[in-house]
């Protein structure tokens, strides 16, 4: 590889790195505290919990919260961790269809309460597939802001579902998620 090629690759990488950190979300949209919940019962919610702890964002975690209980949490924003796990659904004792219904009712109640909804898909490509994608179709367009980690949007599904109405940001790695999450909050 000659020196020019090396220089070009280095500059491209630097440019890409800078570009990846520029967010589409231009101003905070959400209030604290947060209700952290799951849509699909994947283990990814645990990683988001770690990030919220690091960002010192006040939150309540309830992976299976039902819509009627939402008002009682005192939360102003719902953080919805998107992506299905058959192991997680089995452990939670809920079917995939039941979980989709729970999510839809929760979203409807959150909107009724005037809460913002932030969707997070952090499991990358391995958290896509026939089952996981069923959880995205209704939930993603209903969010106020969506953040995707890694290559999960390579096929453009998140871009299609968010369209021009929902702000979408992509970060390279889970460890980079803290920045857009923090900046989403007032």
């Amino acid at each position, binding site marked *: 590889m000659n020196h020019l090629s090396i220089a070009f690759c280095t500059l491209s990488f630097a440019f890409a790195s800078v570009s990846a950190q520029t967010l589409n979300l231009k101003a905070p949209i959400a209030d604290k505290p947060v209700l952290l919940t799951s849509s699909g019962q994947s*283990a990814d919610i*645990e*990683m988001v919990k*770690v990030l919220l702890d690091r960002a010192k964002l006040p939150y309540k975690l309830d992976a299976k919260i039902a819509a009627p209980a939402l008002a009682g949490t005192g939360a102003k924003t719902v953080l919805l961790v998107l992506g299905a796990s058959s*192991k997680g659904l089995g452990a939670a004792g809920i079917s995939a269809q039941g979980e989709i219904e729970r999510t839809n009712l929760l979203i409807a109640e959150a909107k009724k309460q005037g809460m913002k909804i932030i969707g997070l898909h952090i499991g990358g490509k*391995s958290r896509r*597939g026939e089952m996981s994608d069923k959880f995205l179709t209704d939930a993603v367009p209903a969010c106020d802001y969506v953040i995707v980690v890694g290559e999960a949007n390579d096929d453009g599904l998140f871009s299609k579902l968010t369209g021009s109405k929902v702000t979408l940001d992509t970060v390279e790695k889970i*460890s980079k998620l803290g920045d857009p999450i923090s900046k989403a909050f007032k």
Partner: protein
Amino acid sequence: MKRISLTVFSILAAAGIACAQTPANLYGRDGQGKQGIVASAKPESSQVGIDILRRGGNAIDAAVATAFALGVLEPNASGIGGGGFVIVKLANMKDAVVIDFRESAPAAAKADMYPIGDDGKVKNMANVVGGLATAVPGDVAGLLYALDTYGSKKLTRAQVMQPAIDWARKGYPVTANLSKIITDELAKINKFPATAKLYTNDGLPLEAGDTVKNPDLGATLEMIAKKGKDGFYKGDMAKRIVSAVQDAGGILTEEDLAHYQVKIRQPVSGTYRGYKIISTPPASSGGIHVIQMLNILENFDMPKLGDGTPAALHVWSETMKMAFADRAKYTADTDFAKVPIEGLTSKAYAKELATHIDMKKPMASVLAGDPSRYESGSTTSLSVMDKQGNMVAITKTINHFFGSGVMVPGAGFIMNNEMDDFVPQPGSANSIEPGKRPLSSMSPTLVLDPEGKAFMTVGSPGATRILGAVAEVISNVIDHKMSIQQAVMAPRFFRMQSGDYSLEGRVSINTKNALEAMGHKIALKGDWDPFFGGVHAALLDRNRKILFGGADPRRDGFVAAY
């Protein structure tokens, strides 16, 4: 060339360069050689075994070295905090032997020790997470017994264990597979600071390409290498284990550790189309029901039915239903319960069961209402064979991935949560009793050819799916003349006595549709789904004098050979 392939494989696996659901390096995992074969869940551990064979060790030396190495390199799935089974038949042995180093319930354990919630589950997952989930570990006792009794004596214990010690100290790359497993178990891992320190970056999962160095485990293994079994089960390490488990809510005591006993068992055996099947008896249910399933299948012309056809999978479905119904009713630790082994493995019984199979439609659930419960698919299995016909298979575990989550601080290993394999209420053959071993599905198995010569070793992780995986691989080789690697890679299927019929995604769509038309309720899984286990197998072709190894892409499996 093989070392280059190993390096390339490791890089690919670490980088996780794979499409969703398709493992990396799908076609480069098998191997062949004239001298020896080691197949295991990690390329590094397989290489450890081959290096031991090259140095003049025998198949047991190699298997024990590989097993200790797996406890370092695949710490989520097994280790010195766990237990398992060895099945061994050296060329100079008339009969095979099973070394049962399954974990056992502590002396203070009781049938009703876990409070049960209104939902029928153990409250706070106390039999899964934390110290109360931990049973008395057998890994060190079992592996050292195997080495002392059946090893070549050409290599010392320290020499056999040194590769594992080296890997613990120098570190190994995190693969995409391991990173995903850490992610899945993150809630449990983060509960225990010593465990989180090793397997997370400040609470977030290690990512593919990161390195895990575990010098504490290296020191622990070095101490065991020096002091032997007593270095683990007595003295300072025993105190530290008990302290860690009791601090996490457990009831393990130093007496439990000091009194742990390896059990030497006579294998269960049967035949399948002239081949002799030798497998693991209780406290494992595996061997009995692998043989039972093959006995039932023998009543059907499986070669003619074909591989992966609707008719073949229908026969498998009905066979599995009946085998699992019997398993639920009869099988337990034979030191505590009477198990009708002879009856369950008899050809006559199998023939009677075979008459219940209607080729036009599935039978109703054989045991209606039996609750299906989620079982852990973790565990690891390895196979070793050499040109002399020495055969060893080991399946070992800490039960769920990352076991109880409890790491012994400063010692580098995680304690098992094997108590979860008991029925947590009184009244079952598999209820908890002090000193009892919980029912296992582990089925390390040996197959002899129709002339009684060494033919194949096979084993798998995967909880109850182990039984299906092992039986299917045997049938794939014997009925459908697949190579061992083809047999391991072939799409799998599994069901219990009730519930859906799980098919791996690569089963033919025509077969799936035909089974549904017959009345089967199908649950379609991923294309290379670890739900169906991770088989590692070895086969000796006596005519060509070549050993073949098969490794499972559903894990990070890899064969080393020379």
